[in-house]
């Protein structure tokens, strides 16, 4: 865990130093998308060979739905409160 956060912080410092070199930054950002492709391919590969997880997929999908439902529901509720309290003082929605 620590090494992950440390690497990210080191990256942030490097990013700040090279912020005025957009070509280099854009080139490095392409690396993000390719490492994500690679990691998700490897995750898929590893799950595909794992019969236990494959068999559990319907259950995992159900849990995933519950969690996204909870996350979105809670966000909507808080967004509603914040909208009423701080952003739309007494005005109508129109």
């Amino acid at each position, binding site marked *: *865990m620590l*090494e*992950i*956060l440390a*690497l*990210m*912080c080191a*990256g*942030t*410092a*490097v*990013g700040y*130093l*090279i*912020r005025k070199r957009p070509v280099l*930054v854009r080139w*490095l*950002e392409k*690396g*993000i*998308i390719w*490492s*994500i492709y*690679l*990691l*998700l*391919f*490897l*995750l*898929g*590969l*590893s*799950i*595909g*060979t794992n019969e236990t*997880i*494959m068999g559990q997929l319907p259950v*995992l*999908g159900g*849990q*995933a739905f*519950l*969690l*996204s439902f*909870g*996350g*979105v*529901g*809670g*966000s*909507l*509720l*808080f*967004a*509603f409160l*914040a*909208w009423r309290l*701080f*952003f739309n003082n007494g005005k109508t*929605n129109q």
Partner: protein
Amino acid sequence: MRASLIILGFFCVGLASGYLEWLPESWTRTDFSLYALYLLMFLVGISIGADARVLLALRSHGLKLALVPLVTIFGTFTGILAVSMLSGNIPVTEGLAVGAGFGYYSLSSVIISELYSETLGVVALLSNIMREVMTLLFAPLMVAAFGKLAPIASAGATSMDTTLPIITASAGKEFAIVALFHGIVLTILVPVLVTLIISLA
């Protein structure tokens, strides 16, 4: 949207090649993916450090803008606490780690599967994809029922890219800056929060 489909495509091709045994099993038994994650986190850091938009947006819109990401964070965690407790079969810390993906399914799922378990990594992948899809489908309804911040909060980290068009279409163009700022802040927080929470699980 196209980028999301390509990302999913890589996952599905991996899944198929694993399931149908197209590739030797030794491929899945290396530390290779951990090093790829290290590289990814370093690069994510670089893109954050090189991005001046957060400070610029704060300077022009003040602190009220900073409230919106907090709304999403506390709203998400409250909702997740509720469903974890009600369902009884999702440990709260695991639920919160998945929720801390805030729709950034690629990064949250790879961090969770490397640091914790592939099973929960799959849940994080599916759950955070669903979050993006729900926002894309229901943004106009959300505005009508819960106000103009609703689709932004629901979008989570995706409010800066994939769901930005539907947000501005349903809440109005003047919310583009709010959505961008919100998405950028959450995108920065996702790796930090997911890593911290999953280390407690």
